[in-house]
């Protein structure tokens, strides 16, 4: 997928809620034993949802980008506050941006990279000057289910603009791959998603991520050694490490963007937030691979090259590491209250 004009990242912003649920708490209530695969997960407060977190991440991205007008706002999420009423218009109103194409994207955990592809296309065609793509979720896991250990909350936002001396990175290549695969789903009126346990691995996550990355390599003549960093979707701590090794990457390349062990799977925000952690420390000239995965199923893969503007732009960044370290631990009862599992 090539664009007529080069497209760059003008600004990025991340939001991680303050509260953390240690997975030992989930084990204490349901299954016993020690912690889950990830140590903790980020939990949205009772007054937070995908709209509030999207706005916070978007404000940070806009603060860094310093662009006055947006042409598009896309919010990728599977935890929309309304079944019918867009989250993107809440973001548009909160940013004071009204002459925009605004819509919500839905594709499980890859909804945000879908949004990035679409904004990249609009900017790259010359149709708009700047666009905003957001990935956000207050991921839900059925109480007691394996998913409950890993489902976290968070948001990541990117302002894309036509490449110019102020863009901090160039999105130099991108591919998308999809098949009809029923590894994970939620029917219209259901509160929690369902999944096919081990089926979510080989035919779903691994097949789609490996295929999209290999397609990116083949189309653009790239290989694992060309990248200083790689970020893969992180449904749990193991899958991204395993897929990295299969594709020829070393742990050194993925460790910076690997956030699942400390905040859980933030679904649509997962790989975009890993990219933000990389942008917090990458140097000019370095290349980053980003590969998402969304159940249903598909994967978007991008090659992103850091520019000389990164150091100046980063002065405005609220670093992912700072957002992770500033937290308040909660117990299962507080988590149940915050996420509407109990009410009076």
């Amino acid at each position, binding site marked *: 997928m090539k664009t007529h004009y080069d497209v760059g990242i003008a600004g990025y912003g991340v939001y991680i809620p303050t*509260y953390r649920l240690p997975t030992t708490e989930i084990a204490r209530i349901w299954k016993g034993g020690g912690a889950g695969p990830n140590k903790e997960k980020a939990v949205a407060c009772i*007054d*937070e*949802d995908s709209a*509030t977190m999207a706005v916070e991440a978007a*404000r940070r991205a806009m603060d860094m980008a310093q662009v006055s007008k947006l042409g598009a706002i896309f919010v990728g999420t599977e935890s929309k506050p309304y079944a019918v009423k867009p989250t993107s218009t809440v973001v548009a109103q909160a940013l004071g941006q009204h002459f925009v194409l605004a819509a919500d994207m839905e594709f499980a955990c890859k909804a945000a990279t879908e949004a990035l592809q679409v904004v990249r296309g609009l900017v790259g065609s010359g149709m708009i000057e700047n666009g905003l793509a957001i990935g956000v979720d207050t991921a839900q896991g059925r109480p007691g289910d394996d998913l409950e250990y890993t489902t976290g909350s968070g948001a990541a936002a990117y302002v894309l603009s036509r490449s110019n001396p102020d863009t901090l990175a160039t999105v130099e290549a991108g591919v998308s791959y999809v098949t009809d695969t029923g590894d994970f789903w939620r029917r219209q009126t259901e509160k929690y998603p369902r999944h096919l346990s081990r089926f979510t691995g080989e035919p779903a996550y691994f097949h789609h991520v490996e295929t999209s990355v290999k397609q990116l390599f083949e189309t653009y003549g790239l290989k694992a050694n060309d990248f200083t960093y790689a970020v893969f979707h992180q449904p749990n701590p193991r899958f991204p490490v395993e897929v990295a090794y299969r594709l020829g990457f070393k742990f050194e390349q993925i460790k910076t963007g690997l956030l699942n062990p400390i905040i859980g799977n933030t679904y649509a925000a997962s790989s975009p937030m890993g990219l933000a952690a990389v942008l917090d420390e990458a140097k000019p000239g370095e290349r980053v691979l980003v590969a998402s995965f969304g159940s249903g199923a598909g994967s978007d893969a991008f090659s992103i090259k850091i520019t000389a503007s990164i150091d100046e732009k980063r002065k405005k960044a609220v670093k992912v590491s700072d957002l992770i370290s500033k937290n308040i631990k909660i117990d299962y009862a507080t988590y149940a209250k915050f996420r509407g599992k109990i009410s*009076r």
Partner: protein
Amino acid sequence: MKLSISYWRLKDRYYRLVGVRCEECKNEFFPPVYVCRRCGSRSLTDKEMPKTGKILTYTELKETLAGFEDQEPMLLGIIQLDNGVRILGQIVDTAAENLSIGDRVKAVFRKIQEHGSSGQIFYGYKFVRT
């Protein structure tokens, strides 16, 4: 439904802290006024308030108005924004024992209230310590 419509009219106030600035004496006001309280001028323009300030005073509510019970105990503070404007708002993501008068705060975007599981959700500003 009545609240939905009145809230909609004021959304820029709640979402972006839009107040007014007097073009004569340069004073700023939130919520917006139609006549400047300092010089009486009617020459007022919309102005987004600064999102940072400090706590002048605060209290903890163990009993709240109907519709806010799930947020108890609720911290309410009077915040002096960096332009001098004083504003009443909820303080979140902390407990009363961690708060002090003079603490720096910033405005954040949060849910204020929702009308059950089928009604509308109302968003607006609250404050967190920085």
